[in-house]
């Protein structure tokens, strides 16, 4: 697979943002593009991006390994990333996380048996006044969910579980 074949318009548009001497800047947006379909970045995609940008596969892998929003393994269809940092924890984020784990029957870092949700604890998402909150990262990008309750989160998970058909 080659990104330039699957997403010719997007690749061209991404490359047009940076000057010729700064072509390498496109590595991060291209990685997001590569991750869109499967939810993770495989070795072939890294090689492909390296070729597009005239850098080594190691250069690409170094970027993938550094940033938390790139994933190298297949996980749940959606990452549910709950902020448990200090300001959120002062508004009940840890208790929220514990109840959610109980409801889903999984621990932090695990995926629900049906493969819908991988639950993660993450650092500050800049929504400290609206805790408990989390983001979902999935095929349709990243979305914030704020002032959440466990009940509403379980409803959301149910929707995501059955959303397969609507999301391309």
């Amino acid at each position, binding site marked *: 697979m080659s990104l330039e074949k699957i997403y010719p318009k997007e690749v061209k548009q991404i490359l047009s*943002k940076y*000057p010729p*001497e*700064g072509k*390498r*800047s*496109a*590595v*991060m*947006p291209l*990685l*997001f593009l590569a991750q869109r379909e499967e939810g993770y970045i495989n070795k072939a995609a890294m090689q492909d991006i390296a070729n597009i*940008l005239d*850098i080594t596969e190691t*250069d690409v892998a*170094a*970027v993938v390994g*550094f*940033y*938390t*929003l*790139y994933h190298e393994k297949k996980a749940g269809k959606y990452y549910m990333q709950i902020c448990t*940092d*200090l*300001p959120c*924890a*002062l*508004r009940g984020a840890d208790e929220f996380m514990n109840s959610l784990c109980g409801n889903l029957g999984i621990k932090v870092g695990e995926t629900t048996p049906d493969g819908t949700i991988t639950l993660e604890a*993450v*650092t*500050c*998402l*800049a*929504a*400290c*006044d609206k805790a408990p909150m989390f*983001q979902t990262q999935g095929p349709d*990008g*990243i*979305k*914030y969910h704020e002032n959440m309750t466990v009940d509403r989160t379980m409803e959301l998970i149910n929707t995501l579980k059955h959303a397969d058909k609507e999301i391309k």
Partner: protein
Amino acid sequence: MSYILLRHRDIPDLNKFNVYKKNGGLAAFKNAVTKMKPTEVTDVVKNSGLRGRGGAGFPTGMKWSFIDNKNWPHYVVANADESEPGTFKDREIMESNPFQFLEGLALASYAVGATVAYVYLRGEFWELAAFLDEKIAEMENAGYLGDKLFGTEYSLKIYTHLGAGAYICGEETALLESLEGKRGQPRVRPPFPPSFGLYGKPTIINNVETFTNVPMILANGAEWYKAIGTQDSPGVKIFSLSGRVRKPGNYELPFGTTFRQLIYEHAGGVQEGRPVKAIMPAGASSSLIVVDDKVLDTPMDYASVRTVGAELGSASIIVLDDTVNIQWVVNKTVHFFKHESCGKCTPCREGTYWMQNITHRLNDGHASTGDVDLLLNVAKQMQGKCLCALGDFATTAVTTGIERFPQDFKKAVKA
């Protein structure tokens, strides 16, 4: 007083192009490009006394005047990586008053002769980046961005760029590395970005809130701006208030507003009417202030906050009441910095790791007698030994927590 930055709270639909324009928007930019020399724009900002809102408080106009005019092209970069625990102001600005931010970015670009500007957003602001792209396109379509603006020789393009989850990219040289497609690790300074920045070219980097001040300063003049706030810290600041207050949120207030006014008059006081035990005025990077009446009556400006043993930083005010155990707070902040250390400097990479081992022991009740001293010792060994401020920030809550709230740590060891 009407809002200067969070003007969407006064004017509905301000994030729509026509509404922004109808309310005087983009006139300052057009006026600058057609009637002012670039250095005149910088001079107005310099005279206003505007200081950078990202945390360091460096005078903005002075930073712009450092741009190296012997080396071209120039770039301007907006730091929209907002990641300090307790900070959530730039997001509100970009969501609700995006054009004022973009106009400020455009004015800065004109002032330093940049024809390309980037907005570096944290990766989590995925939806916001797409929203800003729409706003940028609207400005282009209306002739406020693009080639030969208003019939002059000046051209400007603005692009968004998403990070992918790394607090360190809020540090300006790490941000540049990341924008260049590398791991976000800070550079050795000097040289500073105004002489060696993006792609090795002179670059000005400012925080979103800083840029958002600029159109209002250009429209109303430096004297108008200087009359607000304090002499040391002119203007208004958005205080992101979180923790155990009744009404957390963003509060735009003049510098010099006291902690008491913010917490009790604006945010309705502390939950359940409990007393404030400690305040962290600069997010997780902050010193812990022991709160008494004198502290509550301290004006929030760069100089005054220093007198009570902390920095104002980005003014992310975290309020801790008397139910909060400071040892637990320190465990949280150390966990954050351990996760976010980029790994470049040994004292930070290893120090945060070992500090986390100890704070976990304290938090789980497995600590032994020497552990608090050991924690303090590790923290102090890290200080002043790293390329960027993260290494020091990781220790601030640790040292001030242990020194100012020793009883909370003694309890942890006994248990």
